[in-house]
């Protein structure tokens, strides 16, 4: 029980801070219960940062990354799981061994590539590199090889379906549960990413939520109520998405770890 309280307490306290004035929080002893200043704090927040522009940047990055990852990874996973082709073992081995390379090793040249492509400061600089996801291919391949029946594929082949029709009409419906986990996982990771947006989004009015919040905290560190209203608004969508899918998501996340 204590563990649960400690896990959840910060969310309670973020709401307490976001609904009171900074004076109430700084007062001694501090106020421990919700106040009624949430709307004024949000108003201050909107005055200080372009909240909706940051939010829409974040949503665009997270949605585009997720869609690309789901499409590319399930397609590649189908080829790896159900076909033999020359070089398959080698290519899959490359994929697995590259999985351990930390992204920081690549970030300086990535920055330079974005400068050359003219993508620096645009959301493409975040979405395109994230679309190559080795974990996703590995995860989808495991699922596809066990959950897509070969008989079903053969039956469709006899009716003349080629690789891509098999993918669209047979494989995709079968792998939906695995796609759901990979989708939420990718969405959460893209929503929370910090170092890449920090480096790539050089234009101060085109930031993602995480970078905008961090700058807000650094710039006006005294008005905690306002900053906490921003933290609250940035955390709520993710917690909602997560709790909606929590059951299957946690089971799949542990499965990935125990494999």
């Amino acid at each position, binding site marked *: 029980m204590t563990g649960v309280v400690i*896990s959840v307490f910060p969310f309670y306290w973020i709401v307490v801070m976001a609904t009171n004035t900074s004076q109430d929080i700084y007062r001694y002893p501090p106020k421990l219960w919700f106040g009624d200043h949430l709307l004024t704090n949000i108003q201050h927040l909107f005055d200080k940062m372009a909240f909706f522009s940051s939010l829409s940047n974040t949503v665009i990055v997270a949605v585009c990354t997720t869609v690309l990852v789901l499409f590319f990874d399930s397609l590649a996973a189908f080829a790896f799981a159900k076909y033999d082709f020359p070089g398959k073992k080698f290519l899959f081995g490359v994929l697995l061994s590259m999985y351990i390379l930390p992204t920081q090793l690549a970030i*300086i040249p990535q920055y330079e590539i974005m400068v050359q492509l003219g993508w620096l400061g645009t959301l493409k600089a975040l979405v395109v590199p994230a679309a190559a996801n080795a974990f996703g291919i590995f995860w989808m391949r495991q699922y596809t090889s066990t959950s897509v029946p070969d008989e079903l594929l053969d039956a469709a082949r006899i009716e003349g379906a080629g690789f891509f029709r098999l993918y669209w009409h047979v494989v995709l419906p079968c792998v939906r549960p695995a796609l759901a986990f990979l989708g939420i996982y990718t969405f959460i990771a893209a929503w929370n990413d910090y170092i890449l947006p920090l480096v790539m989004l050089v234009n101060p009015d085109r930031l993602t939520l995480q970078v905008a919040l961090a700058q807000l905290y650094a710039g006006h560190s005294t008005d905690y109520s306002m900053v*906490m209203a921003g933290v609250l608004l940035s955390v709520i969508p993710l917690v909602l998405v997560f709790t909606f899918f929590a059951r299957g998501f946690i089971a799949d996340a542990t499965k990935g770890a125990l494999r």
Partner: protein
Amino acid sequence: MSAGARRGPRRRVAGYWPQYLAISPYYLIFSVFMLFPVLYTVFLAFQKWDGIGDMHFVGFQQFRFLWDDPVFWLSVRNTLVIWVLSTVPMLFMALVLAVLVNSTKRLTAFYRVALFIPSITSLVAIAIFFGAIFSNNFGLINAILRALHLSAVPWMSNEWTIKLVISALMTWQWTGYNAIIYLAGLQAIPSELYEAARMDGAGPVRIFRSITIPLLRPIILFTVVISTVTGLQSFTEPQVLFGSEAATNPNSGGPGQAGLTTLLYFYHQAFDNNDFGYGAAIVWAFFLLILLIVGINWRLVQRKERRS
């Protein structure tokens, strides 16, 4: 087999075009945005480059400088201290939590969600929250200390408390996640084993040490490796907490540079000072250090396994 039907020596590879097409997006993006950059970083580590002007080949000079750079070693020390201060209590508490949750039958679904939520919350949000409650003057923690008639602690300005705050943050974020991993492992242990041990007269401590721990060992190994890799890469926490000082103050990473982790130092050198060559040298040295530590960890846990 639509592909195999047109067999023939020359069409062998060409006949597989749908498969190659299907896997090509990953390899294309990976080659351009990951493989090439990683190799290029090796090349950069031997160049002096500010990102705009010409590159100058300097050989091992930057690694020699790195070897003598006190700030680099300070950052390595900070990273290691923060990693130990967070990983050890994190994994210990996770194990205790998992055993406790495993012994209750009620509300387990709720416990899981509550324990998992910290690990999906953004680090920036958590760092801001910890910055607020550990604030020297107005923080909740100091208010509680004063209410208990204890003296307030300047959390954000002392060399050790800065590391403690960062470690506490990481511990809070990942304890529940590890507990759920352990819980899944615990539930895979057959209950007959416990019954047999109890029949032989073993107490709960004896059962925990002789049955639970040995059977969980592969999972513990997994969590140790994952926590090491993520723990050593701490960047967002100190960057958000002490980022404002970085631009103007040479003491980047907070007072006394106590929160300057190696990745934060790398970021400052590469993107604040535009010293891309030195940044590349730092990040490669750091990667080798991580490999070394993971290797040592692996051997330690493996050896214990052999002994028991």
